[in-house]
């Protein structure tokens, strides 16, 4: 469903992505690991065009989203994104955070959008927090709301950029739990993460990125127990 061909991205002189090609199937869960600065976030952000690729092609469901003529906003509706720092809207209550884009972008009625938002909040275990502001939520709760907010647009795929890195350790589990449920429900997911346990358990495929390239990819077993490249092994020996 996602097809990426020879993706390059540079910021000025700095080459960050140096030719990434990959196909991701529907319902596949892909975890991206790699050292800091290797271009993981940039790769993810290119998939929903938060960064404009410098060259290369990206197709989502055979639609070429790197086409100049494409409506970027439409693409972004299809790809939900969850950020490291949650980025909830602080001036909106939890339920408003979730219902806002469906109302404004999908033109749902307020009642309909809030009903769906309620269902989503229930799904992430936060129906009792519907009317509080984000400032009153813990980090783990914020991130679960952020996931519900992204899901409210009924995206075809979900992109996660280190969704648990800003959390206190005791809150990591609740967020990973929600993501696991999502994966089991068949969502296509690309997850940049340092949670090797999660990658091992949930990923269909693990990508190891270094220096703007995919160095190695395979099943969690291939990567975590049988890495072929020295760079992968040395990275894993540091984080495991």
């Amino acid at each position, binding site marked *: 469903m996602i097809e990426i061909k020879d993706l390059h991205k540079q910021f000025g002189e700095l080459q960050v992505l140096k030719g990434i090609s990959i196909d991701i199937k529907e319902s596949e869960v892909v975890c991206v690991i790699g050292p800091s600065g290797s271009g993981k976030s940039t790769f993810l952000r290119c998939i929903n065009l938060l960064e404009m690729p410098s060259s290369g092609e990206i197709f989502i469901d055979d639609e070429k989203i790197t086409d100049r003529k494409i409506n970027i906003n439409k693409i972004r*509706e299809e790809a939900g994104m969850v950020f490291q720092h949650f980025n909830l809207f602080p001036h909106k209550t939890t339920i408003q955070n979730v219902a806002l884009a469906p109302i404004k972008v999908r033109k749902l009625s307020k009642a309909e959008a809030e009903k769906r938002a309620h269902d989503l909040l229930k799904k992430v275990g936060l129906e009792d927090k519907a009317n509080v502001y984000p400032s009153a939520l813990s980090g783990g709760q914020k991130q679960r709301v952020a996931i519900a907010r992204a899901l409210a647009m009924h995206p075809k795929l979900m992109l996660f950029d280190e969704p648990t890195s800003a959390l206190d350790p005791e809150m990591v589990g609740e967020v990973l739990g929600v993501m696991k449920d999502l994966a089991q429900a068949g969502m296509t997911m690309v997850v940049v993460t340092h949670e090797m346990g999660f990658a091992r358990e949930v990923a269909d495929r693990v990508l190891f990125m270094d220096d703007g390239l995919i160095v190695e990819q395979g099943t969690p077993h291939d990567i975590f127990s049988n890495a072929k490249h020295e760079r992968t092994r040395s990275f894993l020996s540091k984080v495991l």
Partner: protein
Amino acid sequence: MSLLSTYLEHIIKVLPDLIVGSMITIEITSFSLFFGMILGTISGLGKLSRKRILRYLSIVYIDFIRGTPLLVQILLFYYGLPGLYSNVTGNPLSIDPIIAGIIVCSINSGAYIAEIVRAGIQSIDRGQMEAARSLGMNESMAMREIILPQAFRRIIPPLGNEFIALLKDSSLLAVIGVHELLKTGQLYISRTFAAFPVYIAVALMYLILTILISRLVAYSERRLGVSDRN
């Protein structure tokens, strides 16, 4: 002792005039702040725009206004422009001083508010815009729904300062004969020569007004602040 009672007598006599003048001052300041906020939001956004022409227009406006004295702007607008008009068309043009005052003060405060708005918008975390865009909102929708409401809360205190500055600066409109607070005092002085007590009274009136405004600003800050602690 008799001097003090003479002064007090003058103050009591001039007070009704000063109250009427204060009303005009408040009227001019409020209207100017209102239009200044519109102008300031437009040119503040313009300065951040990706369109070069909008950026340049905003910068020229903001820099010209902030780089020249308000008194000169008032004189230029009230005497200069009608002069130009009659030189070109041969017809006289006169502007109501209050209207002229509101226009000049609006244009003037708009330039200062533009910088307040720009700083307010830039103080909002980039992640907010990214989150909004990632949900499929277009740029202007994200501005309207996400960035500006948050920026607005942050700019209330500097906006309050601008309100106070504008209220004090509106006294300059006395030079074109607007019967605002200072001018009403001066008119009384020209009849009675009681400069000291009247100017003291005028000063105290300005002080009362500015204290009232800071109270109002602090109040709205508290009202709006509750939901916005991240």
